[in-house]
């Protein structure tokens, strides 16, 4: 039989021995669908797949379509590293149980393969194709990882499953076996829905219809394979999340002057901003020390952006206030470019102003000069660094595309790279997630988190949404 009705997760929370919890999962797998679950390490991909095989304890919510109903229990074929580990562990224990005082050879492969097998003919055929026939008499525990993975696969495939759950099925398979497996899966697509856990996008089989993206135990996004835009964005997100990101090094030739480590980066004394006679900010005192991360919040119109532009030197009233930034008392003969060199700045307003036909690589390079557009010749070294940033964003081959033609989210990512390219002592992020959809928000937060984890940078982060928290921020200031 095949699955005749959907598998439905309804606000399902599942606990795994208090080690991990999946929270409030809403998900539906239709009989004709084939899913990939993807996400970072530890996000809960395997846990979610395992729920389909009955693992974990349901805390709340419901799961329909898997449990026995009307006397029929759907058969779920499972391949996973965990299941493989369990089987191997079981075999190892058998070896330890030497009550017979004979050396146990362990269970032979044929027994593991054919005992309780639903389709012996298929199992034999697959064993042959996988080149396992000559190993049938060998003890299962003596198989290599790849070989035991093949055994797992044959067991699952020959169980006449109603649902196949394949957690990283391609791991450890040689090219020949991989092609063989993929060809076999192809023959099942009309009859057996599949849920796969895969990390690598390039391994997604053609027949996959849907992708579920999970992060921190929550199902964050569900994307249809044929939605090219969403699929492309998910690819970039995963690239950001899963690649071992190293932020490209600064340019040794354009280092900002050293700051006195004993002095604060920013010190505002009795800051007052007023328009006409209306005071937007009234006598605010605030000090930002090196390596401190701040979150700035406050309702609309409370002066958040004004405050930031005072620090950045864009607000004319910085000349009528007592402002100390990066060793300069404002209005003492310094230029704004001497201030801006210490700051990386990202805001929606900057994005609006960043019009024109600047190419993506040049947008990043403009960060070396704090300019909107690129007007200065750059060194080869700087261009290399810009290329490294493009690679980090998953945009390696797009350096010559035009900024204004990019999606909103991609533009935001580039502006963050632009702000970061010079490794400024202070990074100001004015609502970096504003106007972004779920996917792009995830991407932006992922990038910022990577950056904050590095050392030597203080972050001032403005946002309204508690769920957009950034790890590592420990200081809070609220206006209005």
């Amino acid at each position, binding site marked *: 039989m095949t699955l005749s009705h959907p598998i439905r997760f309804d606000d399902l929370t599942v606990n795994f021995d208090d080690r991990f919890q999946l929270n409030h999962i809403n998900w539906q797998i239709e009989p004709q669908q084939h899913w990939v679950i993807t996400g970072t390490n530890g996000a809960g991909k395997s846990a979610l797949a395992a729920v389909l095989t009955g693992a974990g304890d349901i805390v709340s919510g419901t799961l329909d379509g898997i449990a026995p109903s009307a006397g029929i229990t759907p058969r779920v074929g499972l391949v996973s590293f965990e299941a493989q580990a369990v089987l191997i562990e079981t075999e190892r224990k058998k070896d330890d149980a030497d009550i017979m005082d004979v050396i146990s050879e362990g269970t032979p492969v044929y027994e593991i393969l054919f005992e309780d097998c639903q389709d012996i003919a298929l199992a034999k055929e697959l064993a042959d194709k996988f080149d396992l026939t000559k190993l049938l008499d060998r003890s299962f525990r003596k198989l290599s990882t790849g070989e035991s993975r093949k055994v797992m696969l044959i067991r699952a495939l020959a169980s006449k499953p109603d649902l196949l759950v394949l957690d990283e099925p391609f791991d450890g398979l040689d090219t020949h076996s991989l092609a063989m497996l993929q060809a076999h899966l192809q023959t099942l697509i009309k009859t057996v829905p599949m849920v796969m856990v895969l990390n690598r996008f390039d391994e997604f089989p053609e027949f996959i219809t849907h992708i579920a993206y999970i992060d921190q135990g929550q199902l964050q996004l569900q994307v249809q394979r044929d939605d090219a835009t969403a699929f492309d964005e998910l690819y970039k997100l995963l690239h950001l999340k899963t690649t071992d990101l190293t932020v490209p090094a600064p340019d040794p030739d354009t280092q900002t002057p050293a700051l006195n480590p004993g002095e604060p980066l920013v010190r505002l004394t009795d800051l007052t901003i007023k328009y006409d006679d209306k005071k937007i900010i009234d006598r605010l005192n605030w000090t930002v020390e090196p390596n401190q991360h701040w979150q700035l919040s406050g309702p609309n119109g409370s002066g958040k952006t004004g405050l930031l532009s005072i620090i950045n030197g*864009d607000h004319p009233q910085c000349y009528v206030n007592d402002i100390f930034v990066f060793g300069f008392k404002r209005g003492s003969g310094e230029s704004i470019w001497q201030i801006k060199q210490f700051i990386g700045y990202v805001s929606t307003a900057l994005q609006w102003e960043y019009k024109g036909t600047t190419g993506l690589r040049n947008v990043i390079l403009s960060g070396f000069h704090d300019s909107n557009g690129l007007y200065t010749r750059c060194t080869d070294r700087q261009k290399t660094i810009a290329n490294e940033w493009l690679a980090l964003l998953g945009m390696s081959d797009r350096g010559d595309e035009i900024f204004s033609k990019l999606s909103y989210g991609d533009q935001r990512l580039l502006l963050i790279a632009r702000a970061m390219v010079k490794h400024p002592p202070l990074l100001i992020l004015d609502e970096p997630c504003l106007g972004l959809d779920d996917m792009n928000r995830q991407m932006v937060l992922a990038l910022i988190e990577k950056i904050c984890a590095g050392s030597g940078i203080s972050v001032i982060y403005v946002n309204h949404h508690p769920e957009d928290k950034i790890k590592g921020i420990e200081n809070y200031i609220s206006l209005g």
Partner: protein
Amino acid sequence: MSNNYFNTLPLREQLEQLAKCRFMDISEFPDGVEALKGKKIVVIGCGAQGLAQGMNLRDSGCDVSYTLRQAAIDEKRQSWKSATENGFTVGTYEELIPTADVVLNLTPDKQHTAVVNAIMPLMKQGACLSYSHGFNIVEEGMKIRDDLTVIMVAPKCPGSEVRNEYVRGFGVPTLIAVHEDNDPKGEGLALAKAYAVGTGGHKAGVLMSSFIAEVKSDLMGEQTILCGMLQTGSLLCFDKMIEEGIDAGYASKLIQYGWETITEALKYGGVTNMLDRLSNPAKIKCFDLAEELKQIMRPLYNKHQDDIINGTFSRVMMEDWANDDVNLLGWRAETAETAFEKTPAGDVEISEQEYFDNGILMVAMVKAGVELAFETMTAAGIIADSAYYESLHETPLIANTIARKKLYEMNATISDTAEYGCYLYNHACLPLLADFMKDIKTDVIGKGLKLDDLGVDNARLIEVNAELRAHPVEAIGTVLRGHMADMKKIV
């Protein structure tokens, strides 16, 4: 009445001053704003240009304050508000001028004589007085105290752009000059260069010119191709389209945004590129129209240049100043009443290419005007670099103001001097082109050529392309745009 300074010079010196213009390399500005460091800069006037320049200079580390007339302060006029809201010290002439090392006169031309007469006695011994337009010195013959240094720094863009480009980390092309009669300490050039750096101009290109070359070329450009030709062209093209039954909303939109679109092509690649945007048959048609227009209008361009060189223009205009601007205000009111001005742009989609295809006559007018202005200026002894900036380079800027709010707004934005010259040109040019316009049909304005076949005669096309590219404005334009592209915008 005034005493025209240019006319007091011997011919030899007139020619030498007219021919002054050199494009400065960014490497000539290694000292940045150093020459202005520690000096007190006082700006007179806080309009768009005054505010923009003051903010840029302050952001470059200079000490800037504003001085306004007592009445502007007492009545808290817009200029007072702009300066104080932006955190500048504001004071009367008496309070601030005596403290100033450098005084920037950024008031309208018309007020220069009164302003300079009021501040000169108050200025510190050995201070510097800076203009952004040389009219007062050259045309009115203002004599400045011998101990004062007199310079000019003239950003070639409206104030808003001067500020915006600076904030972006760039600048706008800027013309600088030293009034040689007033450079007692020989520091004029250093101050002018530092000032150009302070406003960001050095990044976009600085032209070292003379007061005379600036005035005579600026006046010529603004009243002919820049404002005059676009105004006359707008009125003629609109009326023709209405006469030929084109929808009024479409006609209005084609003109209002057409100038901007076609001169954008001019800005990037000169007259050649502007015409290259047309199909081959349309290009040949446009070329022929432009040749005809040039022939008809050449005497008018010569007359404008002659009147500017010999001082007739400024004399006549100043008579109108003395007569409460009766002519200027009357002509301004007339402009507001034209059919083009009163017909709002229709809610129709016009693609970028369509502005070219359906606006062949407009392209021909821009070509004719740019080339004539350039040819007339260089024939009068103005050097090609200068003539390029005052004709081709600035045309897109004026086209932008027409795109924003049509002619009335364009005239309100430009200086009164430019506006006056624009009306003079317009009144002479409209009747001059009356006969020419009789033969004009919608194939060159409104609908485009109806072609089943884009074929042209090879020999004719080669001839037209060669003539386009051989014009001297194209040669200097290629060089100057190359300079700009080198140091700026990688667009």
